[in-house]
């Protein structure tokens, strides 16, 4: 197989794993959209963010994409008035996670689109390699 085709596959596969990490973070956020503190007045689940960076893969010498860090969204928590709630503070307010399902779902769609695009690259590299091998077949 041509070296460049192999590089193409390596970088597409690295991107697949980066995008699946992103999908995992999105699903953690969605799953914890209503996870509040156990103690009264405590902080609830903080939305997680994911960011990518380029990195040299030493085994192949290809610059691939990796997950740079999984961070915390520092935006303020939503306050909900619910005096009967076990996590409510002295004023009867409960801090809800700063997760917006709409944002998470659109992020999920975007991750899916990128994943599909990378999968298409892998598929195409395989087809091109098959074409090359087909040349060897004497008819």
């Amino acid at each position, binding site marked *: 197989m041509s070296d460049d085709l192999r590089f193409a596959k390596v970088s597409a596969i690295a991107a697949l794993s980066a995008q699946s990490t*992103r999908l995992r973070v999105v699903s953690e956020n969605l799953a914890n959209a209503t996870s509040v503190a156990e103690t009264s007045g405590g902080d609830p689940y903080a939305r997680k963010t994911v960011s990518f960076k380029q990195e040299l893969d030493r085994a192949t010498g290809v610059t691939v994409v990796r997950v740079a860090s999984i961070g915390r969204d520092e935006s303020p928590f939503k306050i909900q008035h619910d005096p009967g709630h076990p996590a409510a503070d002295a004023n009867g307010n409960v801090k809800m996670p700063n997760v917006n399902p709409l944002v998470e779902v659109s992020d999920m769609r975007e991750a899916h689109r990128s994943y599909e695009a990378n999968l298409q690259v892998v598929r195409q590299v395989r087809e091109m390699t098959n074409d090359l091998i087909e040349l060897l077949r004497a008819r």
Partner: protein
Amino acid sequence: MSDIGIFTIGHERMRWLASRVAVVASNVANADTPGYRAKDIPSFEEAVGSVQMQMSVTSPQHLAPQSIGSERYGVLVREQPSEKHSGNSVSLDGEMAILGESRGQQAAVAGIMGSFNRMLLSSVRGGA
């Protein structure tokens, strides 16, 4: 057969297409990397006229020259504006279009080379 040079030019075209697919793969992979600019390689007409010299690795401490398609043709940043807040200039649709185009061109070159190969073989076999 060598005076036609069909295999030489076909081989060069195949290498160029493979390099282009590698660069596109890197663009697609970095479609969500902040600050990444979409890359490309010179057109085949330009590339075939000026194949670049390669730096040699004379010590194990030398890093390999920058990868993906750059060894032979050199990588250039594509002149297209970034429409994303993160400064990333990759357009997934554009990359997929190039990918499909490369696929078709590669199939065409493979077809031509294959038929010349069959011609050669049939002359070896005496037209049987």
